């Protein structure tokens, strides 16, 4: 077997980097879009801004939360581009809670770890998971039940999307991705669970610069890499969370 050292051209032939314009052209009205991030860390703000500029609408978004008022996916929701949000918690976004309460958007809530597992199952080619989380609560009312080893449990169908929008700290041209600190969150899960996976990255590195042991998302899952020329203010520190 030839090693990569002897034949660097083997993987160097693959080129997944595209422009932001080319990336966004792959997103259409009415699609289901997974968006990485938990708060600011890991949210692909530039991809979100490009969707806002592109004018696509009627979207179903899958995201842990809706960012905070006026930033990230909240802008898409506030602009009326989103018909449905599948999420875990909106506690830091009163604007979106108000939009939900006015019934201008449909919101589906899942326990946070169940949302993660539903996405993981989608990425793993499974039909769903079986869980007892929320079994005694309102959340169980509409769910299909099953008895497993004598216990009643809930069937939580897998989630997949047309497109996943990912933010990574670094990538190589093959789409191997590395996340930083608490910016990992839902990103590696969503990167497995969509038909088209677009990663915006802060830095593109040479193919051998990322050690194979250190890669969080193997390049096979990444379809396109968009290199960010600069980070907008939204990636920065939110003053109201400073001590």
């Amino acid at each position: 077997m030839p090693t990569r050292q002897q034949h660097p051209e083997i993987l160097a032939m693959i080129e997944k980097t595209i422009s932001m314009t080319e990336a966004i052209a792959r997103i259409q009205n009415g699609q289901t879009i997974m968006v990485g991030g938990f708060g600011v860390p890991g949210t692909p703000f530039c991809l979100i801004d490009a969707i806002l500029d592109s004018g696509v609408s009627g979207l179903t978004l899958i995201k842990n939360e809706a960012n905070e008022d006026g930033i990230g996916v909240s802008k898409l929701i506030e602009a009326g581009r989103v018909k449905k949000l599948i999420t875990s918690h909106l506690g830091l976004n009163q604007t979106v809670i108000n939009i939900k309460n006015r019934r201008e958007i449909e919101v589906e809530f899942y326990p946070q770890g169940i949302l993660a597992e539903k996405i993981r199952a989608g990425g793993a080619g499974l039909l769903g998971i079986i869980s007892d989380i929320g079994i005694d609560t309102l959340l169980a009312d509409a769910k299909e039940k099953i008895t497993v080893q004598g216990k009643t449990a809930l069937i939580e169908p897998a989630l997949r999307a047309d497109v996943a929008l990912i933010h990574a700290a670094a990538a190589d041209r093959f789409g191997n991705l590395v996340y930083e600190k608490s910016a990992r969150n839902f990103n590696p899960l969503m990167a497995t669970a969509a038909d088209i996976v677009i990663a915006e990255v802060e830095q593109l590195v040479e193919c051998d610069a990322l050690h194979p042991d250190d890669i969080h998302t193997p390049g096979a899952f990444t379809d396109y890499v968009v290199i960010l020329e600069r980070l907008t203010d939204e990636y920065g520190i939110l003053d109201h969370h400073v001590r």
Partner: protein
Amino acid sequence: MSAKEKIARRAAAEVQTGQIVNLGVGIPTLIAKHIAEHKDVCIHSENGILGMGLPCDRGREDRNLIDAGGRYVSLRSCASFFDSAVSFMLIRGGRLDISFLGALEISAAGDLANWIIPGHYSPGIGGGMELAQKARRLVVTTLHTNRKGAAKIRQTCTLPITARGCVDRIVTELAVIDVLPEGLKLMEIAAETDVQTVLDRTDAELMVSREPIPRF
């Protein structure tokens, strides 16, 4: 010291060195500094951190390092990062020694209601159900009564529950109460209160020992 700080200080005594601990929103976040002063404890944050430290000093913020409530935090040695699936595997899989959560209501059977007031408050459940249902020990930290002065500890919950029979201990500014198979038992009372005040502000049967009740 405010009532909430008093609750946090007493709740911190529940934690033992070496334990894996999650601090929910509200009063539980105040517990961190009381733990940090005395014990080597590993704090878990749902967004994918084990070994989280205190909120970081002004000017030391890292845009990629927040807790589940969005605050910029520091790290302790031996910390690790992971994705959201692993984060909740840790909770559901039984690796979380103690979860501290706030409450709207707690029932005599240890049911917890803390996520929805139909028609008024419905921000979503977040990680609360998994923390309530699967932590090895659940300590609820809450003011004894709500803003209207009504008891939060009740014979049964009136609000939709988060999880059934999940609460092990309740720490309020007035009392420490355990949820036992036979019912609620008063374990400690605050230094500046008396048993009758606790009984008056509790809307559930409370077992009270004839021995002197320890103070905190």
